[in-house]
């Protein structure tokens, strides 16, 4: 079961329990549209959610389609040239984390 952080759920607007599917969609939906609260309840009770689409996708491991387009400058890059070296980082942080414990470091590759 996937949990959503509880604080966020406490703030859900009350319309969830009575939300309706509007008639605007042109394609038929796969199943009756459940509300967020209804899906959460089914999941928390360990029940199967009806109409859940089960797919099994494997990567192709092919190479990417070659790029033929030039990278465009971002709007802030044309405004003024910015240095590629990183004086910016040392302007606000000179060493390892100062105000909080950073416990475990992991490096898979140096």
């Amino acid at each position: 079961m996937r949990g959503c952080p509880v604080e966020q759920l406490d703030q859900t607007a009350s319309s969830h329990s009575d939300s309706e599917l509007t008639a605007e969609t042109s394609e038929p939906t796969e199943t009756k549209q459940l509300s967020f609260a209804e899906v959460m309840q089914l999941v928390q009770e360990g029940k199967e959610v009806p109409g859940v689409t089960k797919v099994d996708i494997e990567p192709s491991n092919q190479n990417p389609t070659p790029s033929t387009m030039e990278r465009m400058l971002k709007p802030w890059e044309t405004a003024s040239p910015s240095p590629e070296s990183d004086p910016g980082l040392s302007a606000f942080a000179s060493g390892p984390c100062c105000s909080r414990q950073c416990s475990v470091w992991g490096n898979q590759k140096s």
Partner: protein
Amino acid sequence: MVSLYVTMMTVKVFRSPARHGYAVEVSPYIPSRVACAASQYYGIAGCGTLLVLDQTETGLTLVRSWEWSDGLFDVAWSEANEHILVAGGGDGSLQLWDTANHSAPLRVAKEHTQEVYTVDWSQTRGESLIVSGSWDQTVKVWDPALSPSLTTLRGHEGVIYSTIWSPHIPGCFASASGDGTLRIWDVKGAACRLAIPAHKAEILSCDWCKYDQNVVATGSVDCTVCVWDLRNIRQPVNQLLGHTYAIRRLKFSPFDKTVLASCSYDFTVRFWDYSRQQPLLDTVEHHSEFVCGLDFNLHIPNQVVDCSWDETVKVYTPACLSVGAHSAAP
């Protein structure tokens, strides 16, 4: 606050039945192109769908869509190849997708042990790195081959909701967490350089100012946006009040130094100029559910795209952002 702007703007809408939008991003190569990461059943059960949409004069058309076996929570376009995207999934995987490849992702990397809630592709010239943040409380950095990760960074004491590369400082990114801290990281040193207790509640989003490399904003479950100058972290530069539920995502404008947008569980998108006495520029109320995804178009000034759990993606140009509609406070 009464809106001073007549919101009679063209809104282009795409409907994705039974798919709830979590994230949108405009292509850095093709200004009319938008990607959307969406999930079945609000992302708590079932599959995910990645959508690629193109704008027409009046609407949005589907270019390509792919299914994934779990919900998809974020998407980022490659900064090095116009065909390529990376998405983060509820199964802890990152997938690399190619718009010219119909059938399947190119690569899948399954290292995170819980949901990948955020992915970002570095914009700084000269590097091509992907950062991912997960509910497993770790951040991973990858190259586009995607396997294995280059580094795993630990330090956050809660789930990670947002990891965003600095647009100016190579190898530097910010992260926002359920532990209430905003952290700034240096990939080369594999270290957290700053940890700011920015909110007393979860922080769901962060973004960098595009015109001042020291400025970062955070959006929290406490309904506020805080703007921080990293050279003085004792208090925020500004605190933006107005949203009535959690802020889900925020983005700084690519065109205006002090302008940003935020979207919320209060169903609205708000636009702010944090240099003003009254920062709130406008409130857009065109969704009927949580608004989770938000992006500014990098190449069409003042165009905004958003997506919501109401199964829609919307593209529009808010009047409050038009040239001359606002100016920095004296």
